């Protein structure tokens, strides 16, 4: 069998990077970057997720067919998010979204 064995050194390096990423996320959340706070938070989270997929989940060493499945998941997620948000952000709302008060009258 020619499976690729990822060495513990790489795992440790990825782990350290993920920890650093968590630290930066928390630090950045306490700074005021205005609109960019959310962009920074999501960018760091995406970098962390990519590292987990590539190394912890061995995607980098997987056959092309498995990689295609992974890319598909991101692609379909992007379709779901972008089309729905495009609808919400371009449709005229009466004031705001359906008022939550109507759903939750205590």
């Amino acid at each position, binding site marked *: *069998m020619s499976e690729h*064995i990822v060495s513990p050194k790489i795992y440790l390096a990825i782990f350290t990077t993920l920890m650093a990423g968590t630290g930066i996320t928390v630090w950045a959340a306490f700074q005021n970057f205005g609109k960019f706070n959310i962009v920074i938070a999501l960018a760091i989270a995406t970098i962390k997720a990519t590292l987990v997929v590539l190394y912890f989940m061995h995607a980098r060493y997987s056959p092309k067919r498995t990689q295609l499945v992974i890319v598909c998941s991101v692609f379909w997620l992007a379709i*779901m998010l972008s089309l729905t948000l495009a609808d919400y952000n371009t449709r005229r709302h009466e004031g705001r979204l359906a008022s939550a008060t109507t759903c939750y009258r205590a």
Partner: protein
Amino acid sequence: MHRTGQLYGHFETLEQQKESAALGMWVFLVTEVLFFGGLFLAYTVNRGAFSTAFGAGSNTLDIKLGGFNTVVLIMSSLTMAMAVWSAQVGKKKLVSIFLIATLGLGTVFLGVKVIEYKQKFDHHLIPGQGFDMRYRSEHPRVTDDPKEIAIEKEEVEKTFAVDQDTNAHGQLYFSLYFAMTGLHALHMIVGAGLLVWLIKASFAGRFTPQYNTPVEIVGLYWHFVDIVWIYLFPLLYLIDRHR
């Protein structure tokens, strides 16, 4: 046959057999991505519409507990990855040790989650009849730090000044908080069950360099659950910490 790592008739090589098992897990994870994706989408739409109340709700969460749990979960991913490595290089004892470590860290995560949920019940932040974002600052406990309560009171009043319906919109935040972290915790519980099964098998010495597919694919699942938390942590705990 599969359980002992022998070749099934419909595969040509052991490698193909193993790759197929991993591919099957990945296909399942694709459905999971979309499953959680729906909740993230609901979160995004509602946060966009009620950002003030979402910020106030987010600030009631304990960032120390959340941060601690993030560290614990990433560590458990490392131990899971190491369990896979141990099986691949044939260190049978290490497989058991790393699997037990992963289970232990997962349990710590769930324990901290219980503490966090209990706090939300105490502070009347469970969506429903008794929900009140003002409750905590108006009913401080003897053990609460008066300074912290004063800050919270000021913040909550500011929030109500901007959004009169904070209690309604806050319930949306907490509904999503409990749905998302609850579904994530459910996945952790399933993962813990799978780990118990793996630990039993590893005690029996079943995982070898030739056959370690179960460790590998439960690992895939465990890392996926970690990825969900990597997104949940900033989105739920860190919305509005900078004011």
